[in-house]
């Protein structure tokens, strides 16, 4: 099966602390932080959006892939915050990595799992011989309505994967998906902020799909949690992630590298791809990884991945997830509101 030839990430450098948001809305910052297991989140600069984040991540992925960009036959960008309603982000990315014009490109949409859906599409096209390499990006600049619980976690970031079957650094052994029609979280056309079903988002939505996809992968591969060195799941907050890990039989050491939401927030389509990248930054040849995304609506994509001995020569060729996390500058709520266009100007 196709594998990962290169990967790259991008997280904006601005941060806002959960306690700063809580201060504005009169919530108890400690209760919020403990309840969600989130302490701060990334904030995009006023000139950053899903296209710029996707381009930065894709350029970093190309630094690790070391391939002729013209050999990329497909570019897919998964997001729920594409800058245009009509005009694909994928065209901007394809041009910016110098892969255009001989390729197919499209934007993917499936709430927070559109990035992994793009990876699967690339895998299929590589394995069928239709393309030599594919580029799949998951990125978002998530918006939570001011004062809504989502505002504590909705953040920005993305990761990109070059998929191919030559010179891979990690091989995808199998992929398994689980999809149902579940209205846990949605946004109608033209509405600025999404709606969510409160408690409905937990058991019948996130947990049902993530756990079913992981268990489906275990059955398909004849594996269980102890066969994996690392696991990463979608992470709307730290609490759901740790609970899903525990239910599947993973211990803290296996899942801690992939958990980024406590320090950068929920990057939506970027979340699982970024968590997987954080693991690849640390992984050694032979390590086995389980990655499970989740998108409201709802569905999960699971990947069983084995890292090979080419990983070490590629890890230092582009910034690591921890470099991006450490490079930060804080803003207060007023600057955050200005950056996020929450203030109407004269």
């Amino acid at each position: 099966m196709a594998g990962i030839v290169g990967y790259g990430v991008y997280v904006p450098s601005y941060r806002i602390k959960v306690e700063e948001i809580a201060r504005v809305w009169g919530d108890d910052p400690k209760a919020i932080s403990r309840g969600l297991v989130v302490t701060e989140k990334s904030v995009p600069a006023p000139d950053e959006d899903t296209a710029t984040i996707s381009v930065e991540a894709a350029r970093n992925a190309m630094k690790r892939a070391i391939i002729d960009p013209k050999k990329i036959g497909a570019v897919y960008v998964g997001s729920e915050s594409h800058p245009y309603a009509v005009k694909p982000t994928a065209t901007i990315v394809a041009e910016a990595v110098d892969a255009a014009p001989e390729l197919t490109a499209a934007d993917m949409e499936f709430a927070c799992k559109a990035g992994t859906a793009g990876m699967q599409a690339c895998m299929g096209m590589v394995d069928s011989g239709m393309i030599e390499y594919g580029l799949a990006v998951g990125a978002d600049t998530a918006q939570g309505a001011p004062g809504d619980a989502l505002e504590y976690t909705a953040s920005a970031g993305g990761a990109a994967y070059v998929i191919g079957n030559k010179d891979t650094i990690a091989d995808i052994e199998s992929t398994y998906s689980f999809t149902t029609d579940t209205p846990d979280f949605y946004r109608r056309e033209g509405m600025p902020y999404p709606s969510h079903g409160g408690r409905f988002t937990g058991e019948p939505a996130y947990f049902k799909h993530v756990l079913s996809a992981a268990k489906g992968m275990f059955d398909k591969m004849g594996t269980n949690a102890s066969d994996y060195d690392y696991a990463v799941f979608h992470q709307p907050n730290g609490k759901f992630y740790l609970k899903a890990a525990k239910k599947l039989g993973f211990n803290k050491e296996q899942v801690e590298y992939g958990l980024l939401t406590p320090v950068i927030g929920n990057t939506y389509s970027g979340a699982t791809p970024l968590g997987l990248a954080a693991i690849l930054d640390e992984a050694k040849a032979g390590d086995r990884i389980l990655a499970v995304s989740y998108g409201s609506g709802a569905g999960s994509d699971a990947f069983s991945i084995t890292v090979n001995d080419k990983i070490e020569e590629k890890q230092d060729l582009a910034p690591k997830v921890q470099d991006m996390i450490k490079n930060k500058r804080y803003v207060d709520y007023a600057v955050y509101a200005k950056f996020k266009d929450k203030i109407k100007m004269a």
Partner: protein
Amino acid sequence: MSDTVRAWRHIPQRYNLMGSKCTQCGTVFFPQRIICPECRRKGQLEDLKLKGEGKIYTYSVITTPTDEFKEIAPYVVAIIELEEGAKVTAQIVDCDPEEVEIGDEVEMVFRRIREEGDDGVISYGFKFKLKK
């Protein structure tokens, strides 16, 4: 020529810092040129994709911009001397104006340059950030 068409024509330059190099005297130009002003007809220009790394040659802090850029003020606009020799003018992002000094090393980033209102085209392209 409309702004949309102009922005579209400049995509190779704005996205990928496509410049030109004179094969005769080795001078690098950005933006691209058709003839080398030194070598004239003897020179020949070829495309050169600039790496996007360089140093701040000089800069100024914009505190009272036009309405369009009010949201990001105060901000820094610098002339950057690229490693290959050419100079470009660009905004320095993600910094406090006090942090910036002449000679600082910078690298290219991909950002929104401007948008034509809420219903117009968004232009993207290079800006720079301080290297750390």
